[in-house]
């Protein structure tokens, strides 16, 4: 691909939204993530790249404590969200997940109407007082996900009836609806065709205005296109982390260089 154009980095001075220190993850005996230190900046798209199985998803799932639902997973170290340790006993992981939204690899709308998909989060967290407010949240979420114009006339149709790209944007709208501060996306485009991918990438760039976005991708082109900062993982280690332009044009570590130039992965 010649499209290794690097996204303009207007940001670089934002405060750290999440800072992780010495994060270790074990699945039973497997040491899946080794001593990861990362600061994720607010209003920035951060890309996690690396070969398959290197622990990108594992780290992403630490950030909203999704790993708590895996019985054999064990997480060590500290992860601060706005200075607050999210693994602190006083933190309710359920509420945390509303604040740190997640979008998955395969679009997974609920087998319910488009409206109910978006309204579900606000409903269970009691974010609205009446139907009018809920309607408002649904509309603004769908607008933020650049889906409103396509679905405004058929909010009661099943979400599963949309195209793959629309479903993924519906999932983004659903994540946005609980007013999160961070959006985690685990290979959000890997099940989409190139046109839908382009739409979602454009959307990610817009979301940066309001959220800290973390995106896992196995496509370096995608990382280059959408992110301002990139972290390269390899065999459970965070090898290199920095501005996307620097990672792609001037990697410091030889492993990063090998991966970027296609010699590992």
């Amino acid at each position, binding site marked *: 691909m010649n499209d290794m154009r690097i996204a303009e980095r207007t940001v670089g001075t934002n405060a750290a939204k999440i800072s992780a220190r010495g994060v270790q993850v074990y699945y039973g005996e497997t040491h899946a993530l080794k001593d990861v230190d990362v600061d994720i900046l607010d209003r920035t798209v951060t890309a996690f790249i690396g070969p398959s199985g290197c622990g990108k998803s594992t780290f992403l799932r630490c950030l*909203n404590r*999704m790993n708590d*639902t895996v*019985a054999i997973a064990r997480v060590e170290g500290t992860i601060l969200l706005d200075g607050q340790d999210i693994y602190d006993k006083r933190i309710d992981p*359920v*509420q*945390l*997940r*509303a*604040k740190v*939204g*997640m*979008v*998955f690899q*395969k679009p*997974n*709308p*609920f*087998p319910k109407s488009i409206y109910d998909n978006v309204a*579900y*989060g606000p409903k*269970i*967290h009691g974010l609205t007082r009446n139907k009018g407010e809920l309607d408002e949240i649904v509309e603004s979420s769908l607008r933020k996900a650049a889906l409103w114009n396509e679905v405004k006339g058929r909010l009661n149709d099943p979400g599963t009836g949309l195209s793959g790209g629309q479903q993924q944007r519906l*999932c983004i709208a*659903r*994540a946005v*609806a*609980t007013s999160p501060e961070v959006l985690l996306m685990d290979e959000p485009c890997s099940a989409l065709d190139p046109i839908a991918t382009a739409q979602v990438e454009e959307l990610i760039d817009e979301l940066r205005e309001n959220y800290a976005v973390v995106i896992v991708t196995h496509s370096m082109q995608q990382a280059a296109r959408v992110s301002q900062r990139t972290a390269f993982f390899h065999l459970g280690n965070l090898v290199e982390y920095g501005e996307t332009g620097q990672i792609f044009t001037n990697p410091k570590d030889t492993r990063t260089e090998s991966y970027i130039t296609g010699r590992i992965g």
Partner: protein
Amino acid sequence: MADATQTGIGPRPVDWTSEEIGARVRRRKASEMRLKMVGLAAIGFAFLMLAILMVSLIATGWQAMTQTHVRIDVTYDPALINEANPARSNFRQMLQNSLVAQVPGATAEDGRALLGILSNAAQFTMRDRLLADPSLVGRTVTLNVPASDPYDLLNKGLIDHETPEELRRVKDNEIAFFGALAAQGRVTKPLNTTLLTSADSRFPELAGLRGALTGSFYALLTCFLLSFPIGIGAAIYLEEFAPKNKASDFIEVNINNLAAVPSVVFGLLGLAVFLNWLGLPRSAPFVGGMVLALMTLPTIIIATRAALKAVPASIREAALGVGASRQQVVFHHVVPLAMPGILTGTIIGLAQALGQTAPLLLIGMNAFVTAAPATPFDPATALPTQIFIWADSPERGFVSRTSAAILVLLGFLVLMNGLAIFLRNKFERKW
């Protein structure tokens, strides 16, 4: 061309047109053909057996769909009425007298034989009419009463006239009397509604399935009300909330074992615990339903767990991802999506319960009860135990009624399984 067929990378060139390769293809096709034939033969055999079963049931059972009735004019003879207690009047004599008068060539001596044409119910019908309307005394009314079992068989052509008279249940003169009544147009063969509207009776012509149907209904209702909530609750807990450890493995293994326990064992358990220990009433559909619930529980638990497991992980993740608690994930998403599977499993479990005989025999649901149970706590039979009783009865009229009862039971089973298939197809979801 030689190049095209004689290339290869192995030690020898491959010739795809060689005799050896051709024989291999023919052998493969022959073996595929054989497998197909064996499969078709197996299916054909299964269908043949089913057809034989259905044909034999219908061949005997259809005779029970009608019942011979005899229409006679009887006079409420004031001389035979018991003034003090009209219910105890001599209705048999009134019937005899009327029959003797109406059958040409019959004398008073033939009275008893003539009375045998009518079902025992005739005198009770007379009594009930009189009690309802005392002004009938001295008047003549027309009764349309069932014929007794031997004459019903005679009318249906089930009595072999070649049998020597002394071995036959109806003698030559009786055949003649019945023929005379028939000649007057007094013999009809209407639909046997008694079969569904009456409870059991010693007389085949009066016996029906009402008691058994009601008993089965109450038993299944009890079974459903107990096993559905308990089964689903247990399955949801085991599948979604229970920690995965030795104890839950042990429970899991034992639930599977429970599903394989013979039903008669559950009957013995019911007898020991529900009747002897708790002192619950014998022969009651409620107790029957409790025993059936014990048997249905493992089926429902296993089906529910399978249905819960089949809900894709992506839906759970989606719900967790927007901050649903585990309980909300289960009750807002997983259980509703698993519901069609749960219902299908439940209906199949209930259909199994409907056909169970042994456990009901052990708690006495093979009692002879001539009234349908008014509540689930009254003695009753159930469909399969009624079939068991009738199949054991010496009266020949019960032969066709047994088959008819089996057809009714099979009808309900087909209906329930059809409902299960309908639900499965209707809610089938593609992810």
